[in-house]
């Protein structure tokens, strides 16, 4: 779990540097996570095939429809929930 957390942190750092360039790295996409304040994460494309990640997207669909306010996919759940779900994914 600690390793996973540090991985996610690494992804966050990656995301900050990626924000400056035009395209994110191949195989990744940005997601904005959080209830009021949104944090930008980069997640691997393979997450999109995972039912638990799809469930997070369905939650977001309930809130935003398909029109995401930040442009990038926005997942309006608590950050802990996001970390909990994604830490189980490979």
């Amino acid at each position, binding site marked *: 779990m600690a390793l996973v957390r540090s991985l996610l942190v690494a992804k966050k750092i990656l995301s900050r540097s990626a924000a400056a360039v035009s*395209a*994110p790295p*191949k*195989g*990744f*996409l*940005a997601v904005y996570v959080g209830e009021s304040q949104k944090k930008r994460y980069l997640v691997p*494309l393979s997450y*999109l*095939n995972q039912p638990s990640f*799809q469930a997070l*997207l369905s939650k*977001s*669909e309930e*809130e*935003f*429809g*398909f*029109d*995401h*306010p930040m*442009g*990038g*996919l926005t997942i309006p759940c608590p950050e802990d929930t996001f970390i909990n779900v994604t830490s189980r994914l490979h």
Partner: protein
Amino acid sequence: MVKPCWRIGAGMERSKINPTKVDGLTWYKDLGLHTFGEFSMAMIQANSVMEDQCQIESGPLTFNNPTVQGTFVGVYDGHGGPEASRFIADNIFPKLKKFASEGREISEQVISKAFAETDKDFLKTVTKQWPTNPQMASVGSCCLAGVICNGLVYIANTGDSRAVLGRSERGGVRAVQLSVEHNANLESARQELWSLHPNDPTILVMKHRLWRVKGVIQVTRSIGDAYLKRAEFNREPLLPKFRLPEHFTKPILSADPSVTITRLSPQDEFIILASDGLWEHLSNQEAVDIVHNSPRQGIARRLLKAALKEAAKKREMRYSDLTEIHPGVRRHFHDDITVIVVYLNPHPVKTNSWASPLSIRGGYPMHSTS
């Protein structure tokens, strides 16, 4: 002067040379010939079941008057399921021909009647299926139809698809929107609904930062959506999210198309007809510039790609990665998209389409996942 419809395309022959193709989630016909010139079609699926449908028909537009020749183009953007858009694709053109045969010509009234009867017949199907398949009552579709005949282009629209004309102008091309749209996020559509339902304070509700009719749907006119047209469907076993809390007596949505008629001039180069999936990523002018500055072969696919590149940019990912996403979850990145480009050829193409009219249908069956 109104030009007669004598330019006939050799659609069937061209179809054999350049057939329709499917590549993954994309369906396309890169180039074909209709009565007045060339055309190009492309569609891409994002929903788990493709909800868009389209068609092009070229040749006689009546059953009894061979001099009435022209091109019919339809873009049908379904919602809540594919049944309504498929129903339109099966029915609207034969109905148009039937009504056109009665008056032996094409007119605004003929097109409006074809829309009305298509909606009426779809609602009959919903009634018939209600005991076994009640969710049909929440299926609907936008319907955009273009008829080019007699030097005129009729654009009839119910919903929020769009037709844009490319008109050449001093070295460039100007976008002229031909369709009138019905989406609650347009001021005109909201004013219309408020004036039609002055005593209903919840006729339009802002939800997820967007205006929605009764808080459930963005389009203010459609084919189908029986649950918003007849109160008899506003009850169980229709899913709770489609049921309105209060009874209504007057239909909330109408199937009536807004029709515009434009006399074509030699400056009119082409018309782009597309579902809103394209227009949410490309402006009218961006789209006509792409068409004006690119080869005709595969132009519809080129527009699709331009829209998808925009979608990828918005979602902060690479276009090449976007193309790998499976239908269903892909809806979070873009909608089903249909685009048809119809070139308007000022020079007659003399062949015989009475014997072999052109008929191409796109969007069915495509992929189905759940």
